[in-house]
């Protein structure tokens, strides 16, 4: 927490830290269950002039991101986002709602084109898991229809109707409807969020266009220079500020084990049973300490013989999953 206080002094603001782990096999996302712990932190902070949000995430729910920005803005006049490293998708959406974005050299933003996820999505071919679904990218559906019209020059209504019917045999019509709605919603949200940055109306539209579709695939990364060239309000940290941002990141990376893939086999090792407590996301402030998203439980190993084949079975018994409060700062 010492570094948090130093950062608050440097930025003359109150600091909130929000990290969703992207540790391999332990994916965590921005979701609506953060709003309650965030409210607790903000209530302790109270109404202040400025809040800095230290944000590391690969994304998540668009409406949770939208709600979080509006919640924070209710507690401050000036809101800034500090990006130490990855701040993609819904994280980028949150950043658009800030007055400025502080980006390190290694910081990246990403496109905000949404994917639709749900039980009506197409299943992944060749998988044993019926719940494994293909996320339907809004922009990819649009690109498919654009390709038919622009590249293949298919313009007559009958042929276009056939293309749509064919598409609806692969993607459920309700999912396609959701795709259409999501596309207009994300543009509306992004434009509204950008109102706190000093950007002309035309430039706002071109930023939104770039982030929603022109940047190509969803894994495209936008570094500091490109973000600035786009017209976003970007601040480069000086060496002192960078040092603080980096120290905080290094602590979090170590705490959440971001570099080490989660593997239940490794967890068990030579034992037949092992307990686990996995830290997957954190919300922290100097005022109110730590809220952590945890998965707790145990795994046990059994070896089963099936004919000539020996198979290892790992049984998971999850005893807790959710947000839990930890220590208050002394």
């Amino acid at each position, binding site marked *: 927490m010492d570094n948090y206080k130093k950062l608050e002094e440097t930025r003359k603001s109150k600091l909130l830290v929000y990290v969703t782990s992207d540790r391999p096999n332990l*994916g*965590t996302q921005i979701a609506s269950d953060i709003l309650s712990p965030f409210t607790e932190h903000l209530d302790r902070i109270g109404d202040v002039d400025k809040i800095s949000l230290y944000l590391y995430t690969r994304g998540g729910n668009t409406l949770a991101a939208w709600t979080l920005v509006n919640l924070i803005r209710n507690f401050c006049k000036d809101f800034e986002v500090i990006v130490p490293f990855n701040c993609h998708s819904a994280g980028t959406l949150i950043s658009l709602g800030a007055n400025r974005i502080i980006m390190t050299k290694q910081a990246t933003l990403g496109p905000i084109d949404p994917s639709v996820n749900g039980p009506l999505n197409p299943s992944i071919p060749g998988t044993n898991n019926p719940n494994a679904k293909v996320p339907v990218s809004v922009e990819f559906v649009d690109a498919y229809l654009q390709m038919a019209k622009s590249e293949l020059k298919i313009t007559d209504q009958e042929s276009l109707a056939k293309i749509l019917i064919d598409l609806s045999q692969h993607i459920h019509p309700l999912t396609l409807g959701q795709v259409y709605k999501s596309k207009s*919603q994300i543009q509306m949200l992004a434009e509204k969020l950008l109102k706190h940055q000093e950007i002309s109306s035309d430039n706002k539209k071109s930023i939104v266009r770039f982030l929603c579709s022109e940047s190509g695939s969803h894994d495209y990364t936008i570094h500091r220079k490109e973000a600035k060239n786009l017209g976003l309000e970007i601040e480069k940290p000086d060496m002192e500020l960078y040092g603080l941002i980096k120290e905080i990141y290094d602590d979090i990376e170590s705490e959440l084990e971001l570099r080490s893939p*989660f593997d239940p086999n490794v967890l068990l090792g030579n034992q037949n049973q092992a307990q686990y407590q996995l830290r997957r996301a954190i919300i922290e402030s100097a005022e109110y300490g730590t809220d952590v998203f945890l998965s707790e439980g145990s795994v046990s190993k059994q070896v089963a013989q099936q004919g000539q084949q020996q198979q290892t079975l*790992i049984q998971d018994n999850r005893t807790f999953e959710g947000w839990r409060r930890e220590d208050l700062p002394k």
Partner: protein
Amino acid sequence: MSNSSQTGFTSISAKFDTTGLENPFYESSSKGDSLIEQMKNNILLVNEVEINVRETKKQKQEETENTVPNKV
């Protein structure tokens, strides 16, 4: 697709995760397609090269859940 009939083992200890049924508007920070989410109260078959999740009651229950909100 169930692996139960192929292996002769059933996941009798599988538990329902009723969170989604009790509150369809609740959304967890746990990412749905991650291994940690797939293995929740399930049995994993560990092969030499891959890990598959066996079908359990939990998966059947998940099929009935509402569409989750959009992700970016």
